[in-house]
């Protein structure tokens, strides 16, 4: 399809609607379909039906457009195109969505988004009828956010289906769905969802303002929106939460957050995203609170383990061996017999191998994906140890680090932790515990600096007036969480009385 230039006079709003014009814009496409229809077979009332093949449902066109035009007796009274336009405007064609288009831009956009157009050249008027073919896949289970207890449906690529799924879950009349178009070329629909009587107006305005300010030619992947609207663009840490789960998305809307749905993407985005959100999993609220608290606590611990462990290991083995229990020190010494590399290089080799394995696992087709684990287990694990390239103790440390990393519920957050893990390992290898502590202080400083849509990234651990810590490291019973997060400053602050 040729690129449509805004400056193109035909596409411009001032151009008159005509079948010739639309042919000039879209006619060179193989899927362009144009057909002259005579209303009630009257040669004096010609119209041109235009649509893009595949985007529209042929049966809908037959039943709702062609059939009335040829069979509806009321068209017999028409003497010219003006009468036909008047009757169609009055609803003689059975489509739930009829739009009158008098400029080429709107007409072209409608045709390209799955509408059929009926053009009356003499009166320079066109009607567009929504007749979208169903191109979306069925609703399926989420692939990246599995839960044991909870709903199994997830977002799909079709925006309207996604908004409908939200409406189904959240039947409040205050659920508001606003829509904008982004991308000069893709003209993707972006929906902003929020609960009007809960979400703070300033937050919604800010989200809309940032979205509208995006100047880009395509919105085909999530990073375009995410990268453009976050506050700290140079931070590796995610500031917008993504989810495939409708229940999680709706729960966030009810908290007072804003949701963003993008046409063509099966993931939804929640703003603002704080550190705590990336450590919360949907299952936390499905299980009994004691169990959920233990799991949440383990997840917090695992975050620190995966972040610090390689750096800590390098520090204590290279700078502070007296910190180790004596027997453990001897075990490490015994395991390193014959290994030629310093501890830092050894850790670096394994971290790199681990990253390679992860990347390979993602890229490989599923059918041969298991090969990665076999190669990883045998080559990196066993062969490297036997070849004395790495010590078994270090393999164990990196394995624990990796497993702890897999506990992170959010992949973006996990990726950021992977990066910082490497930074801390470097710090630890330069000056031991001092360097590691310096790195951690630096990380804390970085977290403290981030503010996402006016909310501190470390909320509710910092700058929280109500000390809402019921749902942080531990997940207390739901009846203790009577208020919505105070940092969101929502209109309705109480969840329950």
């Amino acid at each position, binding site marked *: 399809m040729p690129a449509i230039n805004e400056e193109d006079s035909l596409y411009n709003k001032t151009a008159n609607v005509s079948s010739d014009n639309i042919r000039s814009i879209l006619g060179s496409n193989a899927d362009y379909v144009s057909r002259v229809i005579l209303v009630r077979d009257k040669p004096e009332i010609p119209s041109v039906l235009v649509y893009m093949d595949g985007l529209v449902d042929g049966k809908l066109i037959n039943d709702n457009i062609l059939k009335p035009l040829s069979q509806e007796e009321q068209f017999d009274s028409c003497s010219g195109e003006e009468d036909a336009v008047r009757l169609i405007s009055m609803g003689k064609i059975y489509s739930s969505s009829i739009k009158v288009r008098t400029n080429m831009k709107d007409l072209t956009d409608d045709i390209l988004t799955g509408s059929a157009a009926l053009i009356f050249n003499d009166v320079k008027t066109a009607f567009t009828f929504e007749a979208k073919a169903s191109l979306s896949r069925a609703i399926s289970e989420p692939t990246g956010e599995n839960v044991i207890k909870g709903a199994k449906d997830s977002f799909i690529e079709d925006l309207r289906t996604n908004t409908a799924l939200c409406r189904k879950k959240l039947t409040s009349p205050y659920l508001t769905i606003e829509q904008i178009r982004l991308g000069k070329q893709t003209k993707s629909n972006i929906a902003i969802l929020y609960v009007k009587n809960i979400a703070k107006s300033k937050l919604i305005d800010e989200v809309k303002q940032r979205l509208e300010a995006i100047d880009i030619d395509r919105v085909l992947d999530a990073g375009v929106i995410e990268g453009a609207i976050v506050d700290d663009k140079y931070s590796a840490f995610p500031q917008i939460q993504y989810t495939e789960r409708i229940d999680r998305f709706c729960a966030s809307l009810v908290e007072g957050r804003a949701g963003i749905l993008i046409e063509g993407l099966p993931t939804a985005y929640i703003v603002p995203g704080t550190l705590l959100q990336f450590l919360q999993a949907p299952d936390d609220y499905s299980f009994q609170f004691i169990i959920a608290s233990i799991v949440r606590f383990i997840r917090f611990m695992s975050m620190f383990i995966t972040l610090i462990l390689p750096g800590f290991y390098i520090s204590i083995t290279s*700078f502070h061996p007296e910190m180790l229990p004596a027997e453990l020190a001897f075990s490490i010494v015994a395991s390193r017999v014959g290994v030629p590399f310093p501890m830092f290089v050894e850790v670096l080799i394994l971290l790199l191998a681990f990253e390679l394995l992860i990347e390979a696992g993602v890229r490989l087709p599923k059918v041969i994906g298991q090969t990665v684990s076999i190669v990883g287990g045998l080559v990196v694990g066993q062969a490297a140890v036997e070849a004395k390239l790495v010590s078994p103790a270090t393999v164990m440390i990196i394995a624990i680090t990796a497993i702890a990393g897999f506990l992170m519920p959010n992949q973006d957050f996990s990726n950021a932790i992977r990066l910082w893990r490497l930074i801390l390992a470097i710090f630890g290898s330069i000056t031991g*515990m001092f360097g590691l502590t310096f790195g951690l202080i630096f990380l804390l400083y970085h977290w403290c600096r981030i503010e996402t849509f006016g909310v501190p990234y470390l909320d509710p651990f910092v700058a929280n007036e109500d000390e809402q810590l019921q749902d942080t490291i531990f997940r207390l019973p739901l009846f203790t969480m009577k208020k919505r997060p105070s940092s969101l400053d929502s209109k309705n602050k109480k969840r329950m009385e």
Partner: protein
Amino acid sequence: MRRYAILTALLALIAALSGCVQIAMGRAEIDKLFIVRVFSFDEAEKGKARITVTTKDLSTGEGGEGATQKGESVVSEGDTVFDAARNLSTYADRKLNAGHTEFILFGESIARKGILPYLDFISRHPEFRYNAKLYVVKGGTANSLVEKASTSRYFVGDRLARIEEHIGRTSISGMVTLNEALLIFDERNLDTFIPYIEPVPTRVSGEKPGTYDMILNGYAIFREDKLLYLASREESRGINWMLNRIGSGIIVLKDQTGQEISMVIIHGNSRIKPRIEGGELHCTVEVSFVTNIGEIMGGTNIFDRASLDYLTKQQEKSIKREVENAIRTAQEKDSDHFSILSKFIIKYPLLRDYFQENWQELFPNIKFEVSVDSRIDGTFMINEPITASEEAVGE
């Protein structure tokens, strides 16, 4: 960016000015360290100092069965301990690291001459842990014990650690940490005690001749920093009673028919109550303990009230004798290793200076009264000897 720069500069300054540069330069891979587990001090010829540092030998055995547990020692001599320690670096293949030193051994000869110079070295060294345990090696050098007591299966440090684990089962000795010893040495009127170990030919089957076991036989009593005498097992347990360090132990008694009965101490404690009466210093030592009957050598049923009362009195007498012996010896040797001075100072703080100035004269004349209270609590489910005659049953 400016804030990052300021933060980095501040932290760099902290690093530079707080001595952390030393840490940064102190990088050493763990496998390049000689991790000392046992640090031994002896006297070399011409009054020189000899140190022996011992670590686990992690070399692979001939059969490829992995790391053995034998010890690996390096010996060094010097004019002073510090000199000897530095001399090590001229031929040791790894850097000495004393951060894991768990046992510090003193040969008997240097213990008799005074161990303060060695403790001075240790306390000034940044790597030693203050919870390291001190031992005196009876009848020889610390070096000889380390060489003799490492078996083909166990490294000397592991053997010492295992002995320590079972110290409470006999209560005839105890553990004294570097910290405890240094605190007592700081007080001029107090004397310390350090457990002593004695090498004896091994009783473990399969070990080659010349291998030795180590026996923990009691305490070495010090006056100031010099070894005064080696206390017997009985006296050492008396010291433990005085210091409320009793875990368990066996009291062997004779019943009314002369048969031996082993009583197991399952719980015991003691309190020392100082007081001044008629211008004289008095101390009441209150000991209480509970025993079980562990073994009856004879065939007589002793599970009647009279017999149990008799045994109770016997065990109280036995323990009282132990405690009185310990006190008597301490007073005779004028060695206040019970820290009685501290107890008087706590009770009579205004007399602190008086006590400290005159303690050498006061301590031998303190009147001690020992009161012992005990109970026989259990019979380990056997309420009569298995060899008891039928007639005796139920009497």
